[in-house]
């Protein structure tokens, strides 16, 4: 971890803005789930979002690729503003990749077919090329031999790594992670986190909702703590973990780092 931390410090964060959220408010019916969110994410930045359940963290990142709609405020992803315009939504979704808590692999397709589906049908890539890209990313997540199996035949950790590879096959510039290790058995969490760390070292812009504080300390440039739909505290990891300023942050950290 120390090695990674050193590498982390040396990682360059460019000045370009990847995601810009200003004054975002979201309601589920009358429930005010996201309140006055302001975030600026630079290219190459790695952000970890944590907080108690129900604080709106998953809703926040799902707004970034329009899986949820916001009612007020502005979200600009990679220069494209997210509105009801389908063309904008398509453009954003092809630049943003998402990894889900429950993997959401397509069970009726092989691993190879899972990975090549979107490149063939969305980017209109010829099959040969799509398969080459798929094998490249399968090598990267270290399970090339599973290419022709079905998701049901893989372990949880392997499935999540395939899910990461599937998003990478679309060559996104931003990756969103929604609690990627929460549904895994403890011995499989490490293999997924290692994959994510490698991804970070390659310079990917990442927004990660997670409870894995070790990962945050190793890789994140910034940790954001959310509660009741708003950003309560945001700081670099060292300051955040050693010197939490807000009372709520202190309470939360004591609960999850305690045991």
């Amino acid at each position, binding site marked *: 971890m120390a090695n990674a931390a050193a590498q982390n410090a040396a990682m360059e*964060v460019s000045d370009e803005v990847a995601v810009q959220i200003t004054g975002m*408010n979201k*309601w589920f*019916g*009358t*429930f*005010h789930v996201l*309140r*006055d969110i302001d975030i*600026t994410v*630079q290219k190459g*930045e790695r952000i970890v979002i944590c907080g108690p359940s129900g604080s709106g963290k998953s809703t926040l990142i799902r707004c970034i690729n329009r899986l949820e709609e916001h*009612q*007020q405020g502005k979200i600009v992803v990679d220069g494209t503003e997210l509105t009801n315009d389908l063309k904008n939504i398509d453009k954003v979704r092809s630049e943003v990749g998402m990894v889900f808590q429950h993997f959401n692999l397509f069970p009726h397709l092989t691993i190879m077919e899972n990975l090549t589906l979107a490149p063939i049908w969305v980017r209109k890539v010829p099959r040969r090329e799509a398969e080459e890209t798929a094998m490249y990313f399968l090598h990267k997540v270290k399970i090339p031999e599973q290419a022709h199996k079905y998701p049901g035949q893989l372990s949880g950790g392997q499935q999540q790594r395939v899910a990461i590879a599937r998003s990478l096959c679309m060559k996104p510039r931003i990756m969103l992670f929604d609690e990627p290790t929460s549904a895994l058995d403890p011995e499989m969490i490490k293999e997924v986190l290692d994959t994510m760390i490698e991804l970070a070292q390659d310079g990917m812009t990442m927004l990660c909702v997670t409870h894995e504080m070790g990962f945050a300390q190793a890789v994140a*440039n*910034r940790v954001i703590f959310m*509660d*009741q*739909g*708003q*950003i*309560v*505290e*945001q*700081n*670099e990891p060292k*300051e955040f973990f050693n010197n939490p*300023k*807000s009372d709520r942050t202190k309470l939360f950290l004591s609960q999850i780092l305690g045991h």
Partner: protein
Amino acid sequence: MADPFIRTQMLPPMAPPVRTSGSIAWIRANLISSWLNAILTVLAIFAVYQFVMLALPWLLHGVWYAGSLGECRDIIAQNFGPDAGGACWAVIRARWHQFIFGFYPPELWYRPIICFALMFVALMPVLYSDDPRNVGRVLIPLVLLTLLVLVAAGTPAPVFVIAGLGLTGCLWVGMRRPLGLLPVTLLYPFFTVWMLWGGSVWGVATALFGFVVLWAVYRLTSQRIGVVLATSAGVIAAAVWWLVIAGYAVDSLQAVLPFAITSVDSDKFGGFMLAFVIGVSSISISLPIGILLALGRQSNMPLIHGISVGFIEFVRGVPLITMLFTASLLLQYFLPPQVQFDLILRVVILVTLFSAAYNAEVIRGGLAALPKGQYEAADALGLDYWQAQRLIIMPQALKVSIPGIVNTFIGLFKDTTLVSFVGLMDPLRGVTAIVRADIKWKGIYWEPYLFVGAIFFLACYGMSRYALYLERKLKTDHR
């Protein structure tokens, strides 16, 4: 990198913007969110309007007080003009009792009413064994309603008092410990048969005694020769009792201790009473058979597996109407020449076999839903096959299967209308044909069919909502 940020004051929740919530937003989101949606909404409103314009005048012009169809039409023509159409509900007012009770003697209506109320009492241990409060919620209104209806039906006072005491007793027991009502559940079939058909109590008692014989033989021998062989011995003993000895026993007991109530012939049975009798008796008898078939289908003994699969596939492969024709035409060939079973009994036997096959499939699904670990835990504890089934597997599997069994019952209840094709007086074609045979109501068709359809709808819809509620409750219980 962004500057560190600490929030000092938490934001209170605000109201959402007007355009995105409230009734305007709801209409925009649900009814006209796209061109296709808008067109569909317009079409739907138009279709509803056409239907209402057609049906509403007919319903609103309904006539409730008239002596015949002709009179109805005169009243409608008088009030609403010569070309108006209207419903003649007077036929329902005049003949509602035939739809409900068939030709059952009106002075004895208290009997089906008591049996119907007792049915819910008998169901309590099965459905609510763990929740005495729910028992109270169901039984208290039930008992009050039953007493009211009994008064309205003109029940003789002594019967009313006994019924009231009995029901209140069941209520008292059920609210303390639902499983205490199990004796009611076990005795219910015999009691109902005696109540509805009347006759000597010894007939039913000897039938009941046959089961006691079965149980006794089983208990005496099961330790030595195992469950299956002991049950077979019990069945043989009970068969001997029923076929040979019971006849003499009934006559001699009746001579010594006469206790009989007015008997009612089977051909007086009709309407919804008949539908419930056939439906409830078939479902209840078919449950144990269905369990055995489901277990047999799962068995790895080829003969047992073959018999179960063969029976289930045969019954599910033929239409119910052919089974009913078998009951009315063929069953007598398979019984000894002296034995003459009532038509209702023959129909109940075949419908029971029919629903046993369908229940077997439902229970098989329930068994499959059980994790294999349950079987292994039972084995590890040293339980033998039948103990494991009785104590661990079946309680769980049956609980999960109850929604499916309720659905089978709903289907069966609707299918009881087919008994009109073998000459029984079901509420749909049977009773309606009788009503139309009367010269006063000749030619009427919409009103009786709508009435019967409405009652079926209420009963079946209620039961299917209950099944859905149970399914949802089970899903959360079994997380």
